[in-house]
């Protein structure tokens, strides 16, 4: 072998890219990607500890019947817009559909038993409900994501007589822009249009306003 014809050595082979065929270059790369993806799925997604969750099935936000949307605006949790319709179950399993309450004022109250301001305002809501029971008015308490037993314990503890429904998977809370900052109340007129949104515990003035509006 003629030494002068030999190549110079490759001093940094790791800096060079080389295509050696579809299978051995692209195929191997794809295999590596799939292996990493499988490992991620195995350890982070499939992990049985990360299971659970709620699927409320048929319950949640439903389409507002066309005949009940006279203004033609899309439902949204905004003053002046039709309230998004929902179908939710009570702790005892009875279904309640918001649009079925048309013709009366509705104070939609989002609450949870862990929420201290909710506990504070609940007696006021119960009193309001009792005071206006002869009027076309109802309070609907929407429990945010708690178990039926928890909601039932709460309602029994405070002796509530107005309807309570369960937003088990939080979909209705989301549609009404209600996060963990509870309570939130919305006053709907007899046409299902949102007239007021109250953030936080209802003040005496707010309760008086609800009472005044519901009396019109």
């Amino acid at each position, binding site marked *: 072998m003629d*030494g002068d014809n*030999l190549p*110079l*050595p*490759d001093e940094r*082979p*790791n*800096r*060079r*890219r*080389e*295509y050696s*065929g*579809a299978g051995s*270059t*692209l195929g*191997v*790369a794809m295999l*590596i*990607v799939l292996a*990493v993806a499988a490992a991620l799925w195995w*350890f*982070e997604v499939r*992990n049985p*500890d*990360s299971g*659970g*969750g709620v*699927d409320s099935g048929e319950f*949640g*936000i*439903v389409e*507002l019947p066309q005949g009940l949307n006279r203004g033609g605006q*899309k*439902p*949204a949790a*905004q003053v002046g817009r039709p309230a*998004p*319709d929902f179908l939710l179950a009570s702790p005892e399993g009875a279904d309640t559909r918001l649009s079925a309450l048309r013709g009366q004022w509705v104070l939609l109250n989002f609450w*949870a*038993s862990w929420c201290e301001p909710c*506990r*504070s305002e609940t*007696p006021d809501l*119960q009193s309001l409900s009792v005071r206006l029971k002869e009027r076309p008015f109802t309070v609907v308490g929407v429990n*945010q*994501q*708690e178990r039926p037993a928890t909601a039932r314990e*709460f309602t029994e*503890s*405070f002796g509530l007589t107005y309807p309570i429904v369960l937003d088990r*998977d*939080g*979909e209705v809370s*989301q*549609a009404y*822009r*209600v*996060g*963990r900052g509870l309570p939130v109340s919305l006053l709907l007129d007899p046409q299902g249009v949102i007239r007021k949104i109250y953030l936080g515990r209802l003040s005496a003035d707010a309760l008086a306003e609800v009472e005044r509006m519901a009396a019109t």
Partner: protein
Amino acid sequence: MATDARPVATPQAAGLDPFGTVWRLLANAKFALTLIALAVLFGLIGVVVPQLPEAMRGNAAAKAAWIELRRDDYGAFTGPMDRLGMFEIFQAPWFVGLWIVIIVAVTVCAVSRFRPTARSIHRPQREVSERYFETAHHRADYTHPGGAATVEAALRKRRYRVERVREADGTAYLFAERFGWSHYGTFVSHLALLMVLVGSVLTKFGGYNETFALAEGNPGIPIFATPGGGQIFVKMVDAVRGVDATGNIVDFRSHLEVTRGDRAVTCTSTVNDPCSAFGYKFHQAAFFDDLARLKVTAPNGQVVFDQVVDFNAKSTIVPAFRVTNAVGQVLFEGAVAQLATDTGLSDGREDDVALGELAFPVSSGSDVYLAYALSWRVVGSELRVGIAGGGFDQPRGLSQGESVADVGFRVEYLGPRAIPALRVDDLPGADGPVTFQLTNDPASGPRLAVAGLSEDVAFLSANAPVEFENGYSYEFRGRLDGAGIDVRRDPGDTFLWVAVGMAMLGLGMTFYLPRRRLWVKVTPARSYFAGIAEKPARYGRELRRMGAEMGSRDALRPEDVREDG
């Protein structure tokens, strides 16, 4: 990623080669940088623009209601943004696809670089051009006795693997290598870097960390600010301050109930050992023992208050006493609540005196109580106590640690104690502010002193409702403990730990197992050395020093000798 200027080894042009075209694209540095720039841009947009909550995906009515709310901010752009998927970027197939292409491109680059490296390690070039002995960056030449055998011996002594490749016309050609496989260290290091990036992305987008204050007896609270089907509730079942036989605190632990939907997990968290549920870790972060549960019922029977009163570290300083009878039986031990304040004669507070009462059963379990009147104020840096009543004909003053005896009882002033105390302005049934003080006598249990509901301070024992003149019933439902619980999830932590290990391995291989590759031409007159080593290495000097050890007289240069000296 392909960023160097070295020419890319392209596939042979043999007609149409779609895979080769794909490879050229994926290994192209500009293409890779464009992909990364797009991913960063859309990632930023996804952070700035509100994203559709998980619970609403797949529900057209819910999504439509949510999108309508966005019109406040985006007006006429809302529709087009929705159609472009700007409200669901992180779930958009094209965004996921973008990242998949980036990952594939990075992997293709790594695989494409791996092959030449592996070939260089396992099938090294054993012979080099004659020219290389004159041009190599690391080279040396010198005379020495013993010929090729001496060189081979010297190299083997330095842990080289030596091979005599060829001999011709009295000239021997050697190939030697040491730690050739350490070249893989570079790949291990780069893989570690890639894993750090993957781990960081996972931590950033899948990580969670928030701290909650949880009280015993309260309902579970949601950990996510946004409601959704995967919401997790955590409830404090029992918060414990562990003490040993001598009263020293040994640990804090929390027994938790964690629920998601209808699944519940109970676990115990300690300071050093968090518990896990649903992929989240629950760390003990704090401990509180100043909580009280109070229930208030209106005259009409309506429960108007049923909550935990959080004293929130607010406290007042009061004296603590131990009362024992003649046989040494402890009848009372604890702090006493302040019942009133004697404001003295001056307008200031310098002569204010706090007033209280020390009441205890005359014998263990007795319903008959004996009471002493107490007063206390701070004198200098000491809380001085006055005690009167009982068999004392005149008030006695007590400093910390002092005791007085009276008709078969001994009263010892243990010193000042801080007890939870809180003013509440809007307690149902109260006309004005109400002050709570929480005391704890081991013999009779915790009591809640309430000032402001009646003329006198009322003491509420646990689970014993008391009806006041206003018609309201107040029930102290017990003193509660609570804990700060730090909830965390870090899906990237495994990657980061593995990456740290790989980085240490890779750097260790690179720096502590220095790769050497050497070609030697041994002629009867002179030996020529040319080799490859990492840049910082002074490989030429290594070779010259080896020559000196072989008996060469012309191997070392003056600078080698100076440095040795």
